[in-house]
C-alpha cells in the first residue's frame, strides 16, 4: 500500500479518536516523512508525533494507533492480503521460527524454542528477566503468544482475552516472588532494605516490559487477521479528559489522576489571570503619570488599577456512596488543588449520614492522603449505608445551615439516586434563599436523569443550575464558570 493511502487512513483514525489534527498539520506530516525513511521506525514515529500530536496527554492514544497502522510495515512483517488467512498464518509461523532462531542463538544457544516444554520455557523466561536480556524476552513473548494464546483467525474475541490467556499460562503473577527469591539465594550476604526495594523495582519494570511485548505481539497478529481499520476501532479509547468518572477502569483512573494535576495548575493560572485582567478598575494616577513621561508629559496612555474581586466561599456537599465515589473524589481533589482561588472551602461527605471533612484537608498538604482519610475515617453511615439524600440534607441543615451566608456558593454532588427515601427538597430550597448560589453536579449522562430512583429534577428545581459532569473536561468547564 502506498504511504499516502496509509497516511490518510491513519490521520482519519487519529481524528476519530478525538485528536484535533488540522489540515496544515497533516501536510506537515507528509512533508516530514519525505525526509525520514519509513524503515527507521522510531524516527518515523517521532516525526509523525511531532507534527500531528500537540498535547502530551494524547501521546498514548497516538502510540496505540501508530502501532496498529505501522507496526507491520517493518521489513520482517510484510502484510499479506487479509483474505488469505491460512497462508498468512503459515507464513507467519515460518517467520516466527526464523526470528526465534536468532533470539536463541544469542540467548541460551542451540535448539528451537518450539521444542521446549512449558516448564523449560518458564525457566528461560525467568533467566531472561533476571538478566534483563531484551532480545530473549522479545523472542519468548512471541513464542508464548504462539503457544498459549490460542488465536484463531476470524475469531471475534478482544485482545485482552488472549493477553489473559497467555499471561495465565506463564504464571506471571508469581514471577516477581520467584525472581526475588532467586536473587536472595544468589547473594551471599543479606541485602539491605534499600537494595531489596531497588531490585524489586527493577524486576517489576522488566516484567512490565515483557507484558508490553506480549501485548504488542497479540496486537500484531490481530491486525494481520482483521486489518488495521477494524483493529483501531476496537482499540479506540477515550482521551483522559473524556473518560467517564462512573465507568473508569483502574488504569483509566491512574491516567485521570495524572491528567488532573497539570490541569489544576493550568486552571489556577488561568483563573488568577482572569481575575487580574479586565478594564474596569479605577484610574491608577501614579502609574499614568509615570508613563506620561515617555510622551513628553502628556498622559496619552491612561493606566488602570487591577480590579480585585472578592473570592467566593465554597461549601462542597458530596455523596460518596459506591457508584459516584470516584466522581466525588475527583471533584474534591480539583477543588482543593485550586483552593487559593476561594476565600474559604468547607467540605462535607455523606451516604445516609453526613460528616464534615474539612479538617482532613487542613491537617495535611497531601491531597491524596486527605482523600484516603475521608474514605476511611469519615462517619457517613447512619442506618444501612445506602444513599439517603433526604436524611443527609436534613442533618446538614440542622448542623451547618446557619453557616451559609450570602457569600457562600454551595455545590451538591451526586446522582440523586435516593433509594426511594423522602427527598426533603425543602432543604435545598432554604439553602438557595440564604446562599449566593446553589449548584448541583451530576455525574450521570443527562438521559438517565429522573429515571428509576433518580430525583435530580426535584432537587434541581430549587438550585441555580444542574450540570452534567461526566468527565474531566466538563468538570473543568464548570469550575472555571464557578470562579
Amino acid at each position: 500500500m502506498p504511504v499516502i493511502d496509509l497516511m490518510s487512513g491513519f490521520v482519519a483514525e487519529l481524528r476519530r479518536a478525538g485528536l484535533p489534527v488540522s489540515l496544515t498539520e497533516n501536510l506537515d506530516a507528509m512533508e516530514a516523512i519525505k525526509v525520514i525513511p519509513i524503515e527507521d521506525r522510531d524516527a518515523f514515529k517521532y516525526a509523525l508525533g511531532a507534527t500531528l500530536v500537540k498535547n502530551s496527554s494524547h501521546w498514548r492514544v497516538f502510540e496505540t494507533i501508530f502501532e496498529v497502522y505501522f507496526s507491520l510495515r517493518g521489513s520482517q512483517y510484510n502484510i499479506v492480503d487479509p483474505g488469505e488467512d491460512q497462508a498468512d498464518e503459515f507464513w507467519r509461523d515460518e517467520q516466527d521460527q526464523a526470528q526465534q532462531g536468532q533470539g536463541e542463538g544469542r540467548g541460551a544457544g542451540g535448539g528451537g524454542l518450539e521444542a521446549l516444554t512449558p516448564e523449560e520455557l518458564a525457566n528461560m523466561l525467568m533467566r531472561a528477566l533476571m538478566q534483563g536480556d531484551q532480545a530473549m524476552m522479545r523472542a519468548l513473548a512471541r513464542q508464548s503468544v504462539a503457544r498459549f494464546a490460542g488465536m484463531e483467525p476470524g475469531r471475534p474475541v478482544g485482545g485482552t482475552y488472549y493477553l489473559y490467556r497467555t499471561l495465565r499460562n506463564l504464571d506471571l503473577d508469581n514471577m516477581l516472588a520467584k525472581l526475588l527469591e532467586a536473587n536472595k539465594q544468589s547473594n551471599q550476604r543479606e541485602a539491605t532494605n534499600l537494595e531489596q526495594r531497588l531490585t524489586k523495582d527493577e524486576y517489576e519494570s522488566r516484567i512490565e516490559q515483557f507484558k508490553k511485548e506480549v501485548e504488542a505481539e497479540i496486537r500484531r497478529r490481530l491486525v494481520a487477521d482483521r486489518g488495521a481499520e477494524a483493529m483501531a476501532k476496537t482499540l479506540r479509547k477515550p482521551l483522559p479528559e473524556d473518560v467517564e468518572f462512573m465507568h473508569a477502569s483502574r488504569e483509566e483512573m491512574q491516567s485521570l489522576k495524572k491528567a488532573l494535576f497539570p490541569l489544576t495548575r493550568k486552571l489556577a493560572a488561568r483563573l488568577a489571570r482572569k481575575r487580574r485582567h479586565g478594564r474596569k478598575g479605577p484610574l491608577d494616577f501614579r502609574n499614568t503619570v509615570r508613563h506620561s513621561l515617555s510622551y513628553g508629559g502628556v498622559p496619552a496612555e491612561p493606566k488602570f488599577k487591577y480590579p480585585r474581586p472578592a473570592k467566593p466561599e465554597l461549601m462542597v456537599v458530596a455523596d460518596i456512596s459506591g457508584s459516584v465515589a470516584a466522581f466525588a473524589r475527583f471533584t474534591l481533589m480539583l477543588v482543593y488543588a485550586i483552593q487559593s482561588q476561594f476565600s474559604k472551602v468547607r467540605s462535607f461527605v455523606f451516604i445516609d449520614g453526613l460528616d464534615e471533612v474539612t479538617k482532613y484537608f487542613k491537617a495535611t498538604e497531601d491531597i491524596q492522603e486527605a482523600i484516603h482519610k475521608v474514605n476511611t475515617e469519615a462517619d457517613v453511615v447512619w442506618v444501612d449505608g445506602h444513599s439517603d439524600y433526604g436524611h443527609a440534607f436534613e442533618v446538614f441543615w440542622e448542623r451547618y445551615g446557619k453557616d451559609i451566608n450570602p457569600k457562600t456558593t454551595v455545590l451538591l454532588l451526586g446522582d440523586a439516586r435516593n433509594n426511594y427515601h423522602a427527598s426533603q427538597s425543602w432543604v435545598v430550597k432554604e439553602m438557595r434563599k440564604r446562599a449566593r448560589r446553589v449548584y448541583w453536579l451530576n455525574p450521570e449522562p443527562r438521559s438517565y436523569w429522573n429515571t428509576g430512583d433518580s430525583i435530580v429534577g426535584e432537587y434541581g428545581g430549587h438550585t441555580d443550575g444542574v450540570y452534567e459532569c461526566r468527565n474531566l473536561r466538563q468538570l473543568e468547564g464548570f469550575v472555571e464558570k464557578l470562579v
Partner: protein
Amino acid sequence: MSSDFVSVSQVRDGLKKVNYLADEGIAGVVYLAQRLGKPVLIEGPAGTGKTQLAKSVAELTGARLIRLQCYEGLDESKALYEWNYKKQLLRIQADKKSDSWSDVHDDIFSDEFLLTRPLLEAISAPDPVVLLIDEVDRVEVETEALLLEVLSEYQVSIPELGTISAKQIPMVFLTSNNTRELSEALKRRCLFLHIDYPDMEREKEIVLAKVPDISVNLADQIARIVRSIRQLDLKKAPSVSETLDWARTLILLGVDHIDAQQAKETLHVLLKYQTDIAKAAKELSVDE
C-alpha cells in the same frame, strides 16, 4: 546554517559531543526542525533540559544563541523592536532649519533609530543564529499573536520601514512549562516535542557525562533510586537537574556506595517538600 544535518543519528552523535544526551525522539525532532525549517515547541516538566537543548544545538551548529525570556506583560517593544524615541527627538532638535519636513521624516524612521529586540535581531542577523523563546506560556494569549508572523514566515513587518525578511532561516526553540494551554495557532506552526523524565539507562548516562569523576557503580545506583522515587505519588518528582545535584553532593561527601543512612541524609537535595521527603524515606525504608 553552517552545517546541515544529514541524518537523525548524526544529530544525536553531535549533541552527545556537546554533552547533551538526546534520545531518539529529541534527535529526530531537531533533525526535522532543521530540514523543514520549522520552529520546535518543547514541553515537559521543569528541569528536564528543555532550555539546555536549545543551548546545545547552538553550540553544536556554532550558531549564536538569541534568547527571549517571556513574562507576563511582555509586549512588542520588548520582543520585536522599538523606535529610539530620545534619539529621534535629538535628531529633530539638532538642526531645525536646514531640513525640510519630509527629509526629517524619512531620516528619523530609518535603521539608525531602530532598537532591535530579540525577535527582530534573530530575523535580521547575517550570521547563523538559534532563537530561544523561553517559557512562552507566561505571556498572555494576545501577545502570543506577536510571535505568529515571525514563526511562520520568518519576517517582521514594521509599518514605517516595510517588511524585514530573514536572510537565513534561524532554528527556533520555544519552551513551555505547560501552565496554560497555548493557542492552536501557535501549536499548529510548530513541531511538538515533549521531553519527559529520561528512562533509567539514559539518566545514568547523563549522570556519567555531566558529573566528573563519578564511578559507573554510583551512577547506576543513583539512577535506580531516582527511578524508584519517581514512581511514588509525589508533589514534585525529582528532575534531572536535581538528580545531577544529588550526584555532585554525594561526590563531595566522598560517597561511592549509597546506603540507607546516606540516602536519608541527602534526600533533601532531590526532593523539595517535607511531605515528599518523608514519604520517600518511608517507601525506600531508609528511615529506621
